[in-house]
């Protein structure tokens, strides 16, 4: 991604024009327009900074550009920490030729994906607890392969289980700026439905997080020890 400075004597040199003065904002906007336009992948602010002449302020130029493309056939959208240009959703009907057939996802995969998105970072055990069934290894694999979920940080609970989080590609695919923009996430949180247990109810000790620790546990705990093992080595 950024392979500029790999050795101490190495110094990356920006185009000379810009050594002393950043180009005017309108020009920066043009440059970002070209950058975003040319790339199929979202471009991070950081990468823009690396590619734009020294002294540019991508954030400001981006706001201009975004406004310029409001209501156009192509829009400037934010995807996580990055930006991209995407055709306007209402024009999708024109693009029958460009339509990509996504693999039909199983119901289990769709639910698992939603759980990861709404509950992230979430362990496999937690996914199983929510769905009430064990999660097929293939389901997780499929979602990882589609680059919609990935491994997150390990949970600081016994066994240090790996967690899953959604990826920028997921956000891009579903047109989300961030996981906070998931439909209904706020309502769910307010209703306590993103918690591990009902509000005001203390089934076991305070702060217990994983179902393994749940003493009065319900009988959905699919054997988890194995999972921890299974995934242990798969973490990146």
């Amino acid at each position, binding site marked *: 991604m950024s392979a500029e400075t790999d050795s101490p004597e190495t110094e990356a040199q920006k185009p000379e024009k810009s050594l002393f003065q950043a180009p005017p904002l309108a020009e920066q906007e043009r440059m970002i327009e070209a950058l975003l336009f040319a790339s199929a992948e979202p471009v991070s602010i950081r990468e823009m900074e690396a590619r734009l002449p020294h002294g540019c302020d991508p954030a400001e130029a981006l706001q201009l550009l975004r406004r310029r493309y409001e209501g156009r056939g192509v829009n400037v959208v934010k995807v996580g920490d990055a930006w991209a240009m995407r055709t306007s959703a209402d024009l999708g009907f024109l693009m029958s030729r*460009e339509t*990509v057939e996504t693999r039909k996802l199983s119901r289990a995969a769709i639910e698992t994906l939603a759980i990861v998105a709404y509950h992230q970072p979430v362990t496999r055990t937690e996914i199983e607890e929510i769905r009430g069934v064990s999660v097929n290894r293939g389901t997780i694999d499929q979602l990882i392969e589609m680059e919609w979920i990935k491994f997150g940080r390990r949970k600081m609970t016994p066994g240090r289980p790996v967690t899953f989080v959604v990826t920028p590609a997921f956000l891009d695919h579903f047109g989300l700026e961030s996981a906070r923009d998931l439909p209904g996430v706020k309502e769910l949180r307010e209703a306590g439905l993103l918690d591990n247990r009902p509000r005001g109810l203390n089934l076991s000790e305070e702060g217990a997080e994983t179902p393994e620790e749940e003493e009065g546990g319900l009988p959905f705990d699919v054997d988890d020890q194995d999972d921890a093992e299974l995934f242990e080595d798969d973490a990146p």
Partner: protein
Amino acid sequence: MSDMPELPQGAANDNLLADPGEWDSVAERRAAEALIVDVDGFEGPLDLLLTLSRTQKVDLRKISVLRLAEQYLAFVEEARKLRIELAADYLVMAAWLAYLKSRLLLPPDPEEEGPSGEELAAHLAFQLERLSAMRECAAKLMARDRLGRDRFVRGIPEAVTHARKVKYTATLLDLMQGYARIRTRDDFRPFVMDRDSVFTMEQALERMRGLIGYAGEWTDILSYLPEGWEMDPKKRRSATAATFAASLELVKAGKLVIRQSETFAPIEVKRRDDER
């Protein structure tokens, strides 16, 4: 939306199982069996419970867990009658619900620790509500304007070519030192090479001390030269000198006697025997 599969079968059974006692009509009965036969379509006991809970036609928050437990147990009972094998987790759930039912019906035992029947029931209701909410979310998610279906990426992306240019540099100092290094190399090289071909007196002494014990007869000192040093003139010179000097040292120390019959004749040494 289209990606969200419908709930398996069960939809037709909404009213059924509501009260097992009322399973009179053949149609209802058949529908109930359909639910059972299609048990494979359920994603586990919680999913089945969620489907059953819909028959109560109330908000999940107001659901009667006791009644739900009864519905589930009736379902399992029915399955057993029909000799349908239920997966173990369905049976585990049945056992747990039977326990929950008893907890809910019996007055709480003050001695017993852990959550009360009401708390367990509330947790189950919460789980059902949460699962239901996640299903709705999944459906909403899938119904969003999706990339490659509703929104599209750049069709002809322009790849960023990454050119790496290496610029080499040197200073005048580097240049001059480099040249000086070459031009003065000869000044130092003989010294370096001498180190290689020098046999020191210490080395010669060391060598002769080990050998003089055998020198009962007059022997040319050249025979004491270390192996491999006779061929190269420089080395032979150095080794000869060192051996000669070492011999004189040993004579001085009274260990050797030395003689030379005439100028340029071989120099010979011999062990000094005191009893001579």
